[in-house]
């Protein structure tokens, strides 16, 4: 798993590549937590290169979503492949965290008032 982050126009974006499972979740959790120490309230996850997601991985995304809710902020997950999308549907997480087809449409979701 590789996780990178950047901040642009007030949006903190994370790109996660590879497998987000029990082994790699603590590392991703740390990166996300540190990045969210700033005052940001717009978060985007680009999951286009995410191959696999376990329940430990869902917890990382859930923690970020909860944090945004506390701040009255917004979060969006973008570009999920079919496999990851299915995990979101079966686990019911799609009703907890907004999902966008692409990074562009994700940015639009975050920019809406």
């Amino acid at each position, binding site marked *: 798993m590789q996780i990178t982050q950047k901040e642009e126009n007030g949006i903190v974006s994370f790109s996660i590549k590879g497998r987000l*499972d*029990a082994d790699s979740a603590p590392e991703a959790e740390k990166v996300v937590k540190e990045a969210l120490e700033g005052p940001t309230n717009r978060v985007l996850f680009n999951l286009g290169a995410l191959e696999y997601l*376990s329940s430990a991985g*869902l917890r990382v995304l859930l923690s970020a979503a909860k944090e945004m809710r506390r701040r009255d902020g917004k979060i969006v997950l973008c570009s999920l492949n079919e496999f990851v999308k299915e995990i979101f549907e079966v*686990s019911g997480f799609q009703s907890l965290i907004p999902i966008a087809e692409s990074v562009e449409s994700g940015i639009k979701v975050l920019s809406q008032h």
Partner: protein
Amino acid sequence: MGNNNSDTESILLVDDNPANLQILFQTLEGVGCKLLIAKNGQGALSIAGKALPDLILLDIMMPDIDGYEVCRQLKSNPATADIPVMFLSALVDTEDKVKGFHLGAVDYITKPFQPDEVIARVNTHLTIHRLKREVESKKDQLEHELEVVSEVQRKLLPKQLPVIDGFKLAVSYETSRYAGGDYYDIIEISENRWGFLIADAEGHSAPAAVLMAMTCALFRAYSDLPTDPAAVLHYLNKHLCKVADPSFMTALYAVYDAKRQTMRVARAGHPLPMIYRSSEKKAFEFDCPGVYPLGIEPYEIEIPVAEIKLGPGDRFLIYTDGLTERFNSDGETYGEERLLIPLATERAATPQAIIDAILGDLTNFAGGRPADDDQALLLGIVES
């Protein structure tokens, strides 16, 4: 020089030359440990085995058994394998030193030695050895505590499966470490109606075990007859929301009506149940709608309940994702598609035989790679 050595610790000095032994003895007299001596390899092995010293300073060139051989024998005996060995030798070639390290020595000092250097190195190795023992003892203690948790946890599971008229059951429950987050329960609601709960706390080990135990206590304290799957999940969620953060719990609750042979299912983030239709000889996932897992936030919506009619010979499987997310050595997961195959096996007819077929297939798939998540599965077959 200050150190934390104590007289309950001992150092074994091994050298065939009495003059060398005496110098070494005098050098280390002040380090605060009991000093033991051996004049040859055989003596060294015998004393090491009995006294289990905390450090051994070992000469290499000795008649009969040389220092290398003594070290090899010490390392191959489980009782003495952990004792750190320092070679003290007149052999100065890199090759000799490397050979010593390959045999498992922690250090190598060339003779003639500087007393202060020997003392400093001895203190370092005694400290490392002491810390290593402390870590091991803490680890043993933690493992013991988890074992106790695990024993308590097993007591929370149903002691035996109920006998249901016309519906035969089997179950399997394995935790990947001592304690786990999986839970299943079966409850008799009223005549011919039975409730099946399966749940999986995110993560494993002690934190997951606490959530598992909470869920068990909550479920058994449910004050109404648990006939409505949606109401049961609402109730569990309401209480788990107060304690689960930042974790959560997936769950599935199904009510079987033995008279009508129907299963009514509500699902919170949990894997879909699997059905084998005997009449069609086909297994499939029962695509029932669901809500997100328990313990995150209250459900503002109605929890959907799906009903499916079962016929003679039909199989109904509920499980936790430790099964389908089990890895093989290539990093692939077992997956739902694979699980459907042994569920549809024609070679076995009893629930236990089918569970055995599933676990056998899973073990084959994993190819020796141990499970890193807990696994629970519960199977019911409608009698023909």
